[in-house]
């Protein structure tokens, strides 16, 4: 298990070394802080605006971090870095798991920074007091982002960086759209087919918080379980593809 954690740590460290990440986080925090300045321009929506802006920024940061999986694997393949790593007694599955966990870690750190920033800034402006519902919504957003990272791992094993990223984004958008179709369709077969796709609609639960609602714990638990199972499936699929890959 240590070797998996080492891979995860290396992946996270490499992303953390990227100055672009800090630039992104700083920009995002500034954007959230600027939400306080909109005040009367929104005419009655200033409080909601800050919270929605915070959620949107957290999600964008999360998605950008999750997409690291799409270009990290192809890049290592292209630069032959992977050859050196895999020449050691380390299974390919473990390598993939390590990569996935590393991206999950960096996504968690980034989203936590933005999420905490959002909570502090909105609390300072007296707009929203940090509450459990916001945390629950953030957990669900994180779950959706982890599902995207899992999709990225599969795509990264056999596609080029740009194509894997593009396809991951299309999957993200498509699954989100089909989530709405599933909610409306009366066809059980179509519904089951749609339910094979990752569930990104769970991140829409920020709507509930912004409207002062309460997110059920069952939903949070379901979201976490769903993400865990989906990630496991994607890792097994990625393992099947990756083991046939000629990396020499």
């Amino acid at each position: 298990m240590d070797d998996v954690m080492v891979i995860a740590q290396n992946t996270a460290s490499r992303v953390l070394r990227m100055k672009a990440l800090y630039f992104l986080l700083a920009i995002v925090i500034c954007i959230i802080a600027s939400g306080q300045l909109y005040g009367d321009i929104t005419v009655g929506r200033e409080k909601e605006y800050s919270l929605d802006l915070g959620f949107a920024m957290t999600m964008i940061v999360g998605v950008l971090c999750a997409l690291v999986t799409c270009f990290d694997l192809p890049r290592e393949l292209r630069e032959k870095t992977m050859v050196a790593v895999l020449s050691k007694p380390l299974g390919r599955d473990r390598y993939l798991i390590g990569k996935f966990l590393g991206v999950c870690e960096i996504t968690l750190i980034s989203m936590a920074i933005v999420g905490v920033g959002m909570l502090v800034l909105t609390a300072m402006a007296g707009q929203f007091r940090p509450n459990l519902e916001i945390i629950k919504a953030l957990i669900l957003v994180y779950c959706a982002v982890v599902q995207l990272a899992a999709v990225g791992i599969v795509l990264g094993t056999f596609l080029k960086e740009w194509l894997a990223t593009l396809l991951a984004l299309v999957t993200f958008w498509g699954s989100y759209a089909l989530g709405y179709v599933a909610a409306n369709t009366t066809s059980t077969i179509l519904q089951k087919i749609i339910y094979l796709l990752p569930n990104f609609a769970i991140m829409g639960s920020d709507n509930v918080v912004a409207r002062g609602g309460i997110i059920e714990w069952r939903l949070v638990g379901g979201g976490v379980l769903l993400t865990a199972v989906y990630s496991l499936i994607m890792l097994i699929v990625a393992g099947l593809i990756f083991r046939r890959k000629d990396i020499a």
Partner: protein
Amino acid sequence: MKDVIVRVILIIVLLALFVGINGGVSDLLVKQEGMDVALKQGKSMWVGLGRWMSHINWMLLLQKRASISGKPEPAVAEALHRRYDTTTDQDPYLVLAYEHGGVELATIGQPKLGLELLDKGIGVVGDTNWKLPSYAAQIVTQYCKDDPNAEAKAKQYLQQAKQVDGHPFYIESALVRIQGKGIQNDPVKMAKLWKEVGTRMGGERGLDQEGADGGPESAYGEYGDRYSKQACDKVVNILRDVRSAADKATDPAEKKKLEAQANQIVMVIKDMMGSQHACSYCFAEYQAGDKFCPNCGRDVEEFGVCTKCGAVLGPNVKFCPKCGASAPKQSVRKPAPKKAPNAKK
């Protein structure tokens, strides 16, 4: 090879599990308060950024509106409608946009677009918001006079507004005005309509203010009671008009018809007034101890008089102040109704 088969089987099993969990989570999402409509009507292309985008669009809308003065070109109005439409696609619960947009589009010469937007809002929050159908009814009444179905549509909207808890009393009166338009020439139907309104506005008690155990208070508080009283006055006026017409009628058949109508209206008024003390002919109210109607001079049934000594008793009296005998129940007036919590000023 064996390893691959094991993995494929594992994937199939996990996928089956995943479909089950995903279905359960999706059901929970749909049932989650605040998510259901967003899921069913929200446009998916905003992938979780819908509400934020709606804020941006809302601010742009406000700027756009500020730049419009007077009646804009149809193209500008249509562009404005598109932006309202997009904003409410992004956040289907943005009631402000439906309200402002619907009224604004109607006032700048695009009532149909305004109604379209309001209809969209009614579809989302119509069961909790009376304003949207009420605005739609006003737009139909004021700006769609050419539409032959305008009255029916306005009536439909008002009835929808009436279904929402907390709607103000003027929704009822607006509805009566519309309902009355088609039956203006039939005094009996008009009387019945006003009776229905009076009963609705005044609660089950209607206009019956007498008796210690009245019905529940009006849902509209003091306004409901006042309006209920006005409704009764309206019916009394209808009766007067019918009687006056009957007196003037020269054709015996016409006279007979009008008298029959007057009798029917009298029954309606009696129903409305219950045990309230009013003249049985002109329905003017009279006071305790009165023997003749102060309005028409006809004999009235005396009430509020001590059965033992004949002294006139005031309102809210339980015992005769002269002889101490128990006052008849009829003379005990019900205390003034308390103001209902949802009464609108």
